[in-house]
């Protein structure tokens, strides 16, 4: 970097990092060093080793394979954590009223613990008296339903959790 950051630069960077999605960050430029953490689970190691010239360096605290990689700030933004398999959900593809059964009194389409394929119907969404079958969209084991039978749901609302690694 041609010039040392000014004090204002430092303030701006901290402010920018605060608005970012990083849990923690460490930036060192020349003799300017900034380390920040939103969860405190970091900074145990000797972090100042391995400077990359005068490049700004950001260290995230994620314990994933990418955590210690050195990369420019801009590149880091959307390449987030590898979707934890257990947290996967099946989301409502439309607004309406969600039913787990084909008709009142009938057995549910699926129960938690049951394995589904992408095209397995897991419920129905009624929108203005039109019934729309809802399929799982991915294969796996339904771990839980997040809405109750006959709940109104919005577009994109998680209906059920699914373990796609199972």
């Amino acid at each position, binding site marked *: 970097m041609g010039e040392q950051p000014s004090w204002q630069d430092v303030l701006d960077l901290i402010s920018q990092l605060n608005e970012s999605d990083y849990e923690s960050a460490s930036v060192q430029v020349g003799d300017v060093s900034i380390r920040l953490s939103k969860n405190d689970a970091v900074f145990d190691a000797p972090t100042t080793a391995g400077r990359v010239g005068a490049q700004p360096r950001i260290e995230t605290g994620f314990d994933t394979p990418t955590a210690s990689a050195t990369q420019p700030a801009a590149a880091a933004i959307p390449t987030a954590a590898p979707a934890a398999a257990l947290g996967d959900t099946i989301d409502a593809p439309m607004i309406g009223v969600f039913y787990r059964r084909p008709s009142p009194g009938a057995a549910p389409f699926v129960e938690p613990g049951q394995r589904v394929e992408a095209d397995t119907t897991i419920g129905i969404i009624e929108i*203005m008296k039109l019934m729309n079958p809802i399929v799982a969209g991915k294969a796996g084991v339904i771990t839980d339903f997040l809405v109750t039978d006959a709940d109104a749901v919005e577009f994109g609302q998680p209906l059920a959790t699914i373990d796609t690694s199972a």
Partner: protein
Amino acid sequence: MSDVPVILVANRGEIAMRIIAAARRIGASPVLAASVADKDSPAARAADRVIVIGASPANQSYLKPEQVAQAAVMAGAAAVHPGYGFLSEQPALCELLEEEGIAWVGPRPETLRAVGDKGSARQVAIDAGVPVGAGVEIDDPTNVVALGEQIGYPLLIKAIHGGGGRGIRLVTNPEELVELAPQAAAEAVAAFGNGALYLERYYGRARHVEVQVFGDGEGNAWIFGDRDCSVQRRHQKLIEECPAPGLSEKRRQLLHDSSRALVKVLRYRGAGTVEFLVDTESEDVIFLEVNARIQVEHPVTEEAFGVDLVAAQLRLALGLDPELPDVGPVPPAAVIEMRINAEDPNADFQPNSGDITRLVWPKGPGIRIDTQIEEGYRFPPFYDSLMAKLIVRAHNRDAAVAAATAAVRNVTIDGLKTTLPMHAYVLAHPDFIAGGIPTSWFGPVWEARKESLT
């Protein structure tokens, strides 16, 4: 049921903010039906609740009547305000809501149908005694002189089966008509398989003037003056003002009386606009269409007359007195609205989207800003390019133009290209300052400016 009625806002952007404000004005609870892209928008934050109705593209959310109706049911809405555009003039949503006993903030579905089609709207106008454009079918292309006289010059020869601008010829005198009519018939046969033609009067230098009406649904009308919306680019309004400058008392009365007659014939309910073409080269005034909704440019009328049209719409839909005054034909102020679009006026008005990094609005007397944008707002690529409306009021038109000029100069919007430079240019142009320019004015003037810069 609570005694605070819920208003479902079935729109986005600045008009969603406007409807939310009107709901708060009357003590109702605004709930926003939003696409995923808008679920954290400023309008979403301003509402009491947000219901996500569909994906970001409008055709998967804002344009789906059953999704909006479902949201209205879920919200326990007493009424649904559709804003403008989207489903605002579609009978479909209106009818779905009727079945659910939810009020529609707009005219009856039969009104929407009657004015939604050019042909039937023309017939309604004729029934109401409103002047419509002269048009006549040609029986014999070799015998057209009398028909030409009947229409007047200049006129257009149009192939009845043509469309999209094809099969149209401009004729400025009888000699041309005699020469071109048979040719056009032959070409129409060749192009469309049918040689039927008609003649229509051509107004190359007409203004767009419209009348703000508000009907009680039983034939009675409030008339809130007129607006001039002649600064247009490709039929898109850029600047609107109230009142329309330089209208003779006689013309104004014809426009207002015609609009009143239409409200009566239609038993029109709520806010609407009657659009006219007002010629600058003849005394002709021609009915264009009825816009059966609140319009983008309604604030100029509100500020000019000191009324709240959107609150009045809501009150009427809820079965209340709209609380509107009877006013004279000319307001006691002059108001100008500038549409600030996320478009680059120096690059053929190409739309752009992205983050608004800095935003400063002018302040002071008579300034109103209708917008959803704020600093840090990411202007989305999915919808139309209207970012904000800058509305300026003063005691007369000269003062309003001066105030508008200063207001435009004192807007800062960083991060996106906007139409502000275009507004600065138009407001400083002697033709605009003089008032009464036709709709054909802006295009060539802006082109000429571009050429003068290169």
